[in-house]
């Protein structure tokens, strides 16, 4: 199958990116924050395969470590939003009635506001570090998850096996986890994949605007942000490589999600 090969290609690409960032320490050629004022703005080449930045730090090394930060924030926040989304959606979908109506109204209101605005507002209140960012993206990224969980629950709670379970006196938490959530895994997985791409995107956007990860910690977004100052000087390598990695990461996650959606739903 042709599409299967493409799928494997994107999975492998994403896997590779995750792998080299997770094991950044093994691959990196310099200490991540080592500054060398004698070697600022070195073009890719000798000793620094992707060049150095305005403080003489090795771009390749920072790229790997930056990926670790960006991906940690993305994975962490997606996990958080998954938990919140599942809880919110579960209550709304399982309880139903006016509780559901009220919760869905609220959710619609929240969805209608672009999540970037939420994140900005949060960020203004709590200037956080890496975990702060993770928290912020997490608590603002669960809306779609909640919606999916709710609609799945509404569909599934009328299923005969759920009725049977109620008659057998199975406890509610077991009905929710064993019957309802177990059977919502596929759509949940797909939406989570897309959330992951979204989280990478938000981290990068915020850091690019200079309001994300603190500048002392490298992240892909931070690197792009700093690269703004360097473009004028013609130091294209500082912005290009993080840009490419972000591009391929988001692209591969999106393709993986898209293909999962098509094949499993």
């Amino acid at each position, binding site marked *: 199958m042709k599409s299967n090969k493409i799928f494997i290609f994107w999975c492998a690409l994403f896997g590779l990116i995750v792998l080299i960032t997770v094991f950044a320490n093994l691959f990196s050629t310099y200490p991540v924050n*080592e500054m060398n004022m004698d070697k600022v703005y070195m073009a890719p080449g000798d000793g620094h395969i992707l060049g150095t930045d305005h403080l003489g730090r090795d771009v390749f090394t920072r790229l790997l470590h930056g990926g670790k930060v960006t991906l940690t924030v993305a994975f962490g926040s997606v996990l958080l939003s998954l938990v919140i989304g599942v809880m919110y959606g579960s209550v709304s979908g399982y309880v139903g009635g006016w509780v559901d109506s009220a919760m869905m109204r609220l959710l619609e209101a929240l969805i209608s506001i672009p999540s970037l605005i939420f994140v900005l507002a949060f960020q203004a209140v709590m200037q956080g570090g890496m975990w702060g960012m993770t928290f912020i993206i997490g608590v603002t990224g669960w809306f779609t998850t909640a919606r999916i969980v709710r609609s799945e629950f509404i569909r599934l709670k009328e299923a005969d096996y759920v009725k049977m379970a109620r008659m057998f006196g199975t406890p509610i938490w077991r009905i929710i986890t064993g019957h309802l959530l177990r059977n919502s895994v596929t759509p949940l997985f797909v939406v989570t994949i897309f959330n992951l791409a979204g989280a990478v995107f938000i981290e990068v956007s915020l850091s690019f605007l200079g309001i994300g990860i603190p500048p*002392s910690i490298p992240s892909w977004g931070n690197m792009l942000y700093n690269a703004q100052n360097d*473009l004028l000087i013609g130091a*294209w390598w500082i912005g290009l490589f993080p840009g490419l990695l972000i591009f391929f990461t988001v692209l591969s996650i*999106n393709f993986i999600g898209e293909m999962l959606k098509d094949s499993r739903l």
Partner: protein
Amino acid sequence: MRKRQVVIIAVLLLLVVLAGCGQKKENSTDASKNQLIYASESEFDGLNPILEETNVDALLFRGLFRFNEDNEATTDIAQSYDMSDDKLTYTFKLRDDITFHDGKPLTAEDAIFTIESILDDNNASYLKSDFTEVDALKKIDDYQFELKLKRPFTPILDKLTVPILPKHAFIEEDMRTASFNSHPIGAGPYQFGEWNRGTNLTLKAFDQFYGLQPSIGQVIFKFIPDSNVRAIQLASGEVDIALLDPNQVAEMEKKDHLKIYDIDTADYRGMLFNMQNELWQDVRVRQAFSFAIDRAQVVKGILKGYGEEAYSPLQKHAFHNDSIENYSYDIEKAEKLLDAAGWLKAEDGFRYKDDQKLSFTITAPASDAVRVNMANYLAEGYKSIGAQVEVAALDWSAITIDDTDAFMIGWGSPYDADHHTYSLFHSSESSLTSSGYNYGSYANAKVDELLEQGRLSTDVEERKASYLVFQEALAEDPAFAFVAYVDAVYGIHGNIEGVKERTLGHHGSGFLWNVEEWKWNDR
């Protein structure tokens, strides 16, 4: 939604790739216009010169005295003055041919009004500490007045460069809320034209100016907080003058239509120790962190050579003392000092005292790339002496300097030695209890005393002696870890003539000091 993300990222990427080779825009402004567009780093809240210092002051206002090319105060609106033998009473004679922009004559009453307004606590003027030695003011006639001091205070002539406010503009008006503040009236070479908040401020030449009639008809201050945008607009000709970041200079030098002025300043950068923080109570800790800065590398790497290593606030002044401790880079000394202060290195490479890790945060304004870079460089360097230092680059609006652990401060003045020393290091000037600039609540009795001596003695040699010792005392008990003096590098359109260099102040302010002498040689 997803597609859009991909598109946005693709565009971002494209920008990243293209931006390096993309700035080829031709001069877009109307070259025939006899106007000057200045890329202003920041906008101002108001234009009242006794409430806020702006780079527009030099154009709109004039004072009794004015700093010349050598930063010495010379008579301007004051025609002449006499000093009594006890050095306590000054009599000023004003020129009688000066009018404000609104046509009303400038008289002794306006001068008296200005000083009284500065001293009036209701106005909370940032200049008050400059005039606290003034005892009484007496009008003799319309163009003469007498100023009495409590104690002899030679810097008073420097202080009298303060812009003169028109008394008639404040009748029944509160200084803080007066309409004057957004529509100022001065006696300077340019008068207020139009102010589009958030965009630009236009000043027009004042044709009844008593001095040299300006050649350039309009000066426009365009507010561009982002230094890259300033540089790009300078390169494209959308603005005529801009202050450049050091790393932009090389690229701007390649532009044929630009002239680069690398101007010496009294503008230093340093790390302010906020004495509110327990950590800095021990002077040895502050000394250690002063030793652990590789200033040569900062000047080389971050300032690209446009600056020099700093060790004293008066380094560029005639009273500079170069035999004080200059804290040249010495990790060993720093480590010894920390050991002595009880901060001991643990297995993890960091120092601890009473189970507390040696760590703090340096705050820097995010819009100032040089300060952020310095903060990052310092933080990284401090690792080697076992300190965990974070950097918080925040928007100015989110910064309260007296709440930080340490702050990348920028200060300096090319004028009288009292300027930007008393208000920074005297304990009575703490920003917590006064309108002074002592943000770190620094207090040292000896420094206080020397600063007072310096400001009150009238004999130049005596003053010099005081300030020499002051620098020594400050170096022994540092309030800042001085890092570097930064040159003001201005990019300016090559067809502008008349720029006169002089040692500039904070953020290169004062570059426009003689703008009425500037002219376009092609317009």
